[in-house]
């Protein structure tokens, strides 16, 4: 019988458990490796979801309060300018902004670009100046050419730039559709910096008038409207109001977009996790098998321990500590590995599942953001089932009768 205070007792038991784990190194190392891989997989998925959601929440704060689209025949169509004054009249609305945007598919590269029309002069002056790498800052001679066609300038995302470089169009790009008489040339005056890559990677920001030409948008129409509401409490109500006045208009609030993104990220992560369930299950069966099949030496060891006066309780504690040490080490190692994989190696393989669907994959940096909540979730998914599976075999081993063993020696 181990004597001493409770802590001393536990200390001795832990000591014995460690020794016992080390003695059966080859058997335990296999379990350890599989366990680490499992925790690693689970935590990678949770980490990447966490930091993507975090990044989405931060960046989406810049999204418009309410986006207004016109729906005709169940499809989104251009918004007519006649709606503008009506919406501006609603109390609580600060301003209504019009937007011009669309997509341009470049068949030769099989790439889809997002085209967005805005006044680039604003970009050159305002706070957005910082997020652009200005290029082709022209010498006076060239400047003349540029200023002569101010409607045909654009700023592009880093991903678009890489693609265009391959076809030697990184300075100026020719938009062309077969139905057009002639191509429309655009000067590229800058690229967006890498920090904004998640949003800007496949973007082409065109001067509004030029964008209208490329998107073939009639002068009195817009792609959609953006409504600014200074008081966040009013957003939901105003969105409902707009929809009530003009049933053909669809309103999308920022909260709705954030919720949708969060749902999508969670759905993806849970989908990958549930496909991992099979692996977890297989691991549990392996554990069960390993834990129930006691080798003759182990049996003898427990028999001797009980013969020299160890209680069933104490043997159970030894088994419990063995499980806890094993799962503790593997959880720690798995979580650290996952951290390195996600934030240093930037999650190769996993990243593609979670972001991007076009041919250009944003290669942005994931922000380290590990909420302690996730650690609890990881423990629930990996350690709890492990301990659950080991309860019965541990008891089975602990009740081994000393005399039965001794007789066989």
């Amino acid at each position: 019988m181990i004597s001493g205070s409770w802590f001393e007792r536990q200390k001795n038991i832990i000591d014995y458990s460690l020794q016992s784990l080390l003695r059966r190194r080859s058997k335990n190392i296999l379990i350890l490796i599989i366990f680490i891989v499992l925790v690693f997989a689970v935590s990678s998925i949770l980490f990447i979801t966490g930091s993507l959601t975090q990044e989405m929440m931060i960046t989406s704060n810049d999204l418009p309060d309410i986006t207004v689209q016109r729906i005709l025949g169940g499809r989104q169509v251009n918004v007519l300018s006649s709606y503008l004054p009506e919406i501006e009249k609603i109390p609580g609305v600060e301003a209504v902004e019009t937007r011009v945007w669309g997509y341009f598919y470049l068949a030769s590269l099989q790439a889809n670009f997002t085209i967005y029309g805005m006044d680039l002069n604003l970009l050159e002056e305002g706070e957005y100046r910082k997020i652009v790498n200005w290029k082709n800052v022209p010498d006076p001679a060239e400047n003349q050419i540029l200023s002569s066609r101010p409607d045909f300038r654009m700023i592009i995302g880093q991903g678009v730039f890489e693609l265009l470089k391959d076809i030697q169009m990184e300075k100026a790009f020719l938009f062309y559709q077969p139905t057009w008489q002639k191509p429309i040339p655009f000067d590229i005056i800058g690229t967006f910096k890498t920090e904004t890559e998640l949003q800007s990677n496949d973007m082409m920001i065109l001067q509004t008038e030029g964008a209208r030409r490329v998107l073939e948008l009639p002068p009195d129409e817009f792609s959609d409207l953006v409504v600014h509401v200074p008081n966040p409490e009013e957003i939901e109500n105003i969105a409902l109001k707009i929809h009530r006045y003009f049933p053909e208009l669809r309103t999308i609030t920022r909260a709705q977009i954030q919720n949708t993104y969060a749902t999508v990220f969670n759905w993806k992560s849970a989908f990958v996790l549930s496909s991992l369930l099979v692996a977890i299950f297989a691991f549990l069966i392996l554990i069960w098998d390993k834990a129930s099949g006691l080798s003759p030496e182990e049996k003898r060891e427990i028999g001797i321990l009980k013969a020299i006066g160890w209680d069933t309780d104490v043997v159970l504690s030894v088994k419990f500590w063995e499980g806890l040490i094993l799962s503790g080490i593997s959880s720690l190692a798995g979580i650290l590995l996952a951290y390195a994989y996600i934030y240093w190696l930037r999650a190769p393989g996993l990243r593609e599942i979670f972001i991007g669907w076009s041919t250009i994959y944003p290669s942005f940096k994931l922000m380290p953001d590990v909420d302690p909540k996730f650690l609890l979730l990881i423990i629930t998914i990996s350690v709890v089932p492990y301990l659950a599976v080991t309860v019965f075999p541990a008891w089975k081993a602990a009740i081994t009768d000393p005399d039965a063993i001794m007789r066989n020696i």
Partner: protein
Amino acid sequence: MMLDPWILGLIIGHSALLLIFSLGLINAWQIFSGWDYNSTAEKQFLLEKKTYLVSTVMNFALFTQILMLFLFGMAADELANVLPGAMCAVGTLSSTSYGFALLDLKIVSFFAYFIWLVVNYLDNQIETYPLVRKKYLALMLLYPFAVVETVLLFAFAFDLDPSVITSCCGSVYNEGAEGLGASLAGASAGFILPLFFSIVILLLLNRFVFNRRDAGKKWLGNLLEFPLWIAFFITAIVVIISFISTYVYEMLSHKCPFCFMGAEYHYYGVPLYLCLFVATATGMTGGLLETIKRPETLAEKARLLQKKMNTVSLWGMLAFVVIGFLPFATYYIKTGRLI
């Protein structure tokens, strides 16, 4: 909404809990129906070994249950990001009719598991296991709780719909609204604070005055602790919602018992609830231990443990009061007025 990592985690945890508890139930039934301490048959020998299995199982169940209580709170908080209109755990819980039912059941079963384990611990110290049949009957009665909990969890998960707008804590705990949350929040400080403190004082009086004076009535005083601690827990929750929360948020309209568990409020709620749960669990159990009278050896051990429990519960209660009224005190000192 099954496909969410938090829901998945809860389901895995609960499945493990239910599986292990089922194992415990089968063995508990065998022990309950076949126990005969005086028998020397091999069956009795095996049953005695099985008591170790059931103890281990229940230890695991309690540990998992505590973990699940925490995880459920966090999951509810986390899911609020996904549900439109929800701003914290309250929105998630009230978005389906099962949310609060599940939370309440989890709290009740936490206390039940705790009491069972204490009794089990006591009983295991006596060689003859005098309480064995009662103990295992109680365990079998606990099993339905675990089943209902798991069923409720699945119902909750299926019922969560990210496309339905839910209410946030601002509207649930709003005096003008209807429902239980509103009446909890509406309970005026003038009514609930005297009630809460009279329970606290009653507990202290019971502990230090009545018990000292009349040794013959001591058992009654100890027994009284059980209902008193339940009343303490319930009024404490009402005080948190209607009084403490307003001083934590320093806003009259914000009365939420969940928001202050987050990082924005420096995890203020974590020690607060920890003290409340520890105090109530030990206090209740201390009172309940009074019912253990026979055999003499067990009663002796029970008295010893009761003393320890009483001390822990007292300190827990004091810590709860200090932590709970700290925001009020700092507010009052800083501004010199009430909210």
